[in-house]
């Protein structure tokens, strides 16, 4: 549908209105978060609902960073999310490769089981997981979170990786195997270098998923020094619910890693999501 052929003024106006609406709806809440974070404490109650603050300050950010435990929450979340992303991507690459290149008995059943794990209420296993992890004495440990999150993210990451492997012609690795490589060598030397963008995208998806997980972290972590960012922020909110500026400054900080990864995976969004599985 080329727009140059018919320039209906009503249509053009409607389109501009739609563009404005979607931009405002998407960005306004984030703008507000940033605005309150930058407003000095003494002005919050007098001009809290003005569209722009009359003066701005970075003191909320500095006090969040240096006077609270947020730096430690941030570090914990970083460890958990990076750990989960790395382990998940390696395991999912193996499984995705198997789905993409082999026909084998049990394949359909395994795919069905993986799809089902995306369907049932994850909260259903929150109590058993708590009990199991407690029996191993692993409550309040970051490694337990990494194991749990890795398992949660494997099915989706597997389907994503499979779609990337499907996009690489088999001839390449078959040629390498003719030359005397084993399949594993062919995978390592020929296929993996070609899937690097796909691996990056999978890393990004899993990282953001692990970064925002809240409920299992709440259940499994209760000690302050192993709290992840979401748990820490929520605890902070329930304890100091009037420190608006600091809470929002912490929120802005939580946004940074996700946004970085988001910019990075932008290009793969449409491609990856549609050829892979469908998940939020």
């Amino acid at each position, binding site marked *: 549908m080329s727009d140059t052929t018919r320039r209906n003024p009503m249509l053009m106006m409607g389109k501009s209105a739609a563009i404005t609406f979607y931009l405002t709806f998407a960005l306004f809440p*984030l703008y507000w978060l940033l605005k309150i974070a930058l407003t000095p404490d003494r002005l919050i109650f007098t001009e809290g609902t003005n569209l722009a603050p009359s003066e701005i300050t970075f003191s909320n950010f500095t006090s969040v960073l240096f006077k609270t435990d947020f730096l430690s929450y941030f570090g914990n979340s970083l460890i958990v999310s990076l750990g989960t992303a790395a382990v998940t991507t390696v395991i999912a690459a193996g499984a995705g490769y198997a789905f993409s290149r082999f026909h*084998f008995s049990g394949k359909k059943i395994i795919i069905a089981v993986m799809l089902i794990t995306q369907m049932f209420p994850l909260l259903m296993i929150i109590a058993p*997981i708590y009990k*199991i992890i407690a029996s191993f004495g692993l409550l309040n440990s970051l490694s337990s979170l990494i194991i749990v999150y890795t398992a949660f993210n494997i099915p989706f990451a597997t389907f994503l990786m499979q779609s990337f492997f499907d996009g690489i012609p088999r001839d390449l690795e078959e040629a390498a195997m003719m030359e005397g490589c084993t399949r594993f060598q062919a995978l390592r030397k020929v296929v993996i270098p070609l899937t690097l963008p796909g691996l990056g995208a999978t890393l990004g998806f899993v990282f953001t998923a692990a970064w925002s997980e809240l*409920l299992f972290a709440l259940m499994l972590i209760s000690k302050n020094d192993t709290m992840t960012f979401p748990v820490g922020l929520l605890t902070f909110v329930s304890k100091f619910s009037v420190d608006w500026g600091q809470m*929002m400054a912490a929120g802005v900080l939580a946004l940074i890693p996700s946004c970085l990864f988001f910019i990075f995976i932008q290009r793969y969004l449409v491609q990856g999501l549609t050829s892979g599985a469908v998940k939020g």
Partner: protein
Amino acid sequence: MIANTHTSVTSGETRARRSFYWRYMVEPYFYLSPALILIGVVMLVPLIVGISYSFQSIALLKPFDTGWVGLENYAALWDDRKFWLALENTFRWTIGSLSLQFLLGLGLALLLNTQFRGKRLFQALVFLPWAVPTFLSALTWAWLFNPVIGPLPHWLHDLGLLSEPYNILGDPDLAIWGPITANVWFGVPFFAITLLAALQSIPSELYEAAEMDGASAWQCFTKITLPFLAPMIAITVMLRTIWIANFADMIYVMTGGGPANSTQILSSYIFTTAFRKLDFGYASAIAVALLGLLLIYAVILLFVRQKLVKV
């Protein structure tokens, strides 16, 4: 293929068989086993354990009162007014979020399927909410609805929708719209991405032919776009319904299920029962009930899909 090199001395028949076993039984599982083991240990085993919990009394606050109780948890569930309220709220939450996400997502996908200046930047910006961690989306919207620091109550008051600028999250009649709004904000990009990909797969010759035959834009939309999108819409809506029904984070963070359980949905009820009351038996019974409902829903959908879509 590597098997060939190892078995070159054996007879052709055994070699073929070993290669067959290697190729179909062993090698794929070499790549798959880490994934299978983790899913099995962390998801499938706890799932079965969780179902068994629903027939037991397991409350961490009553450690001497544990044991098998048969259907007692389910009987309690049947008489639990909060459970039925949560069930009703689950429908409101799911249908409200889903329909708004879908309509706004479809609009956005159609918009992104046209050409305009600055489209790449626009696309990056409108997809941004999808990258925002869910707990943060929930907190941000909870703050926006707060009359002290958020503008929304004042705007709703100015529009005449609220008698005075108060926090709707504290009003049992309106509270559910808070989490729904946050969920819509967060979920629109997902629908837009999926539908946009489907839109781009429609062959453009169809539109050119229709335009030559003098079809209006509306006719093109209803006669070409919608029929082509229908299968994708069906699948996405199906999967998303289940996902939203299971999605407790927004509600837990924004209202905690309150005021007076007016925003409690089944999944958030599971979480508060397990997390706050530490009553694992009862939480598991609610979870099994939710699982049963979702299964019924999936079966109905598969049935409807078979009737509608002829593959």
